């Protein structure tokens, strides 16, 4: 069990800065998910924490100790890889015990840990099998078991579910959540899948181009994204974004939108802003602060909900969520509305703007 503190962490390969001055504090027992598009630096950050790569600048502390110069094994971490990285020529039991042999641990203790981990992960009957005789899900459980037997302070997961099929991904995700509850260990989990991020995390770290875009609880990120990047990245389908200009401190206008009134707002007239609204908040036929009409191009029916893809009079694509069986006809013009509380405003630099401040 341990806290993890990262301060001013930089990683550069030649001139390319992969990580730019990362600061992050993780509490004991917390489940933190690093999420972001490919190339955002999330896996690099995980490798630096693991000690598989060296930092260019900055400090990494696990508990009170600075670990920058320690070998991975000395950091009391365990890592689960996307490719499982099981030793192909060793059976399941040897895969789990191989690392422990070198720690000088007593044989009884090793056996106890393997037995416990095998029971926890339902691997009891598979201990004598080789990795090639296991299914994808079983291999992933062995990889997790190999991490558990080390009883590390911090668990690191590098996209552990990406190689599994959809059904197995859901059930393994639930297993990992239960495991976190059971072990109470600090866990850091890298993924590009926002469903995994939203469902597993105590806190999500959204990364973009080597920087942290926002850190927060899943629903905080969803309902109050700190910037345009997070607004667009979290939520599926993505948030609708409109260009608007401030006409008076309480009034906005934009092409295809008409004017909209934000009571109590103190905006700077003349400023160019971005207005965001999630598909689920854009309701068909409803009134609200935001009103727009658009021509329907496509409807995706998912059962309980449908997504309407439409285009406004000035050519901007929008997506709205429809509930119930009734949907407007394709090619017809439909009106949509959203409440003021569901609108997100961002300034020219993409930062969230509080209209009342």
């Amino acid at each position, binding site marked *: 069990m341990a806290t993890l503190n990262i301060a001013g962490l930089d990683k550069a390969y030649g001139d390319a800065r992969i990580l730019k001055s990362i600061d992050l504090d993780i509490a004991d027992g917390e489940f933190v998910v690093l999420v972001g598009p490919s190339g955002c630096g999330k896996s690099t950050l995980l490798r630096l924490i693991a000690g598989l790569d060296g930092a260019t600048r900055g400090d990494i502390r696990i508990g009170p100790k600075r670990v920058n110069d320690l070998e991975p094994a*000395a950091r009391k971490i365990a890592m689960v890889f996307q490719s499982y990285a099981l030793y192909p020529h060793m059976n399941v039991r040897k895969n789990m015990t191989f690392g422990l042999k070198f720690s000088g641990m007593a044989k009884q203790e090793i056996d106890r840990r393997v037995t416990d981990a095998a029971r926890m992960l339902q691997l009891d009957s598979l201990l004598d099998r080789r990795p090639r005789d296991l299914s994808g899900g079983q291999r992933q459980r062995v990889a997790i078991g190999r991490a558990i037997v080390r009883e590390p302070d911090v668990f690191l997961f590098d996209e552990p579910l990406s190689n599994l099929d959809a059904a197995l991904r859901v059930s393994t995700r639930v297993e990992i959540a239960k495991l976190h509850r059971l072990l109470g260990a600090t866990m850091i989990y890298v993924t590009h899948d926002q469903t995994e991020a939203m469902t597993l995390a105590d806190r999500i770290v959204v990364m973009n181009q080597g920087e942290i875009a926002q850190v927060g609880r899943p629903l905080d990120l969803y309902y109050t994204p700190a910037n345009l990047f997070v607004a667009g990245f979290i939520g599926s389908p993505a948030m609708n974004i409109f260009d608007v200009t401030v006409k008076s401190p309480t009034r906005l206008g934009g092409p295809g939108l008409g004017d909209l009134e934000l009571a109590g707002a103190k905006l700077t007239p003349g400023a160019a802003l971005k207005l965001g609204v999630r598909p689920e908040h854009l309701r068909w036929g409803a009134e609200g602060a935001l009103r727009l009409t658009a021509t329907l191009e496509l409807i995706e029916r998912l059962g309980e909900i449908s997504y309407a893809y439409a285009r406004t009079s000035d050519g901007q694509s929008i997506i709205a969520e429809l509930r119930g069986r009734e949907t407007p006809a394709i090619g017809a013009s439909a009106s949509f509305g959203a409440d003021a509380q569901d609108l997100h405003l961002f300034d020219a630099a993409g930062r969230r703007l509080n209209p009342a401040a």
Partner: protein
Amino acid sequence: MRNLSRAGVHAVLIAYSLLAVAPILIVVMNSFKARNAIFGAPLSPPNAQTFSLIGYSKVLLRAQIGTWFENSLIVTLGAMALTLLFGAMAAWALTEYRFRWTNALALYMAIGIMAPIRLGSIAILTMMRAAHLNDTLMALILVYIAQGLPMAIFILSEFIQQIPQDLRDAARCDGVPETRIFFEVIAPLLRPAIATVAVFTIVPIWNDLWFPLILTSSDSTHTITLGVQQFLGQYITDWNSVLAALSLAILPVVFIYVIFSRQLISGLTAGAVK
């Protein structure tokens, strides 16, 4: 059209196989014939009149033949084992660890593939004499390690690069020491490659005449290929013995090839298909 081109390919392959096998076949065939028959009808197989084991009985009765075989085995197997060990370790170091001289060192090894070691014969001879290693099997082993290393490193590097990075990272996170990562994680996965390199290393060493000729002088350090030369005289050559000894010398190489061939083929194709 397709059948025709396939037949063409097979015709070429069959012709090449015949070309490669025919001399060996003639040697083995004639080793079972009497002296007159060897000269009288060198291309006909032995029959009831011409069959003779005189060559084999002469060769096997000579005391030194056992020693020569033993020397060849010691030199070949010793050089092979050390080439594989050092080759795999060097390949691992050159692919896994980045240090200032990585590229220069890799290039230096590549030059070893291109430049024949025999160019250095005189220097080698002087060095061995200076080290008081002339006329010892150790001298041969050292030379053959130098001869085999560049190719071994080249082939093994290719294979090591194909072992997923995650596996080495996982072992490091597991706290496995670097030497154990090499010997217990990487080396077992290199088995097919090691078989390939083993065959490529063994055959030229076993067949080599040049270095035993310049580095060994006494009967007790001769290898089988050099020993056979004693049957070739300036005025008279004991063809029965020469052919019998050569036929015997083929056996160990064939034996080793049979052991490694399955691994060898999987190693060759693994490298080719990637």
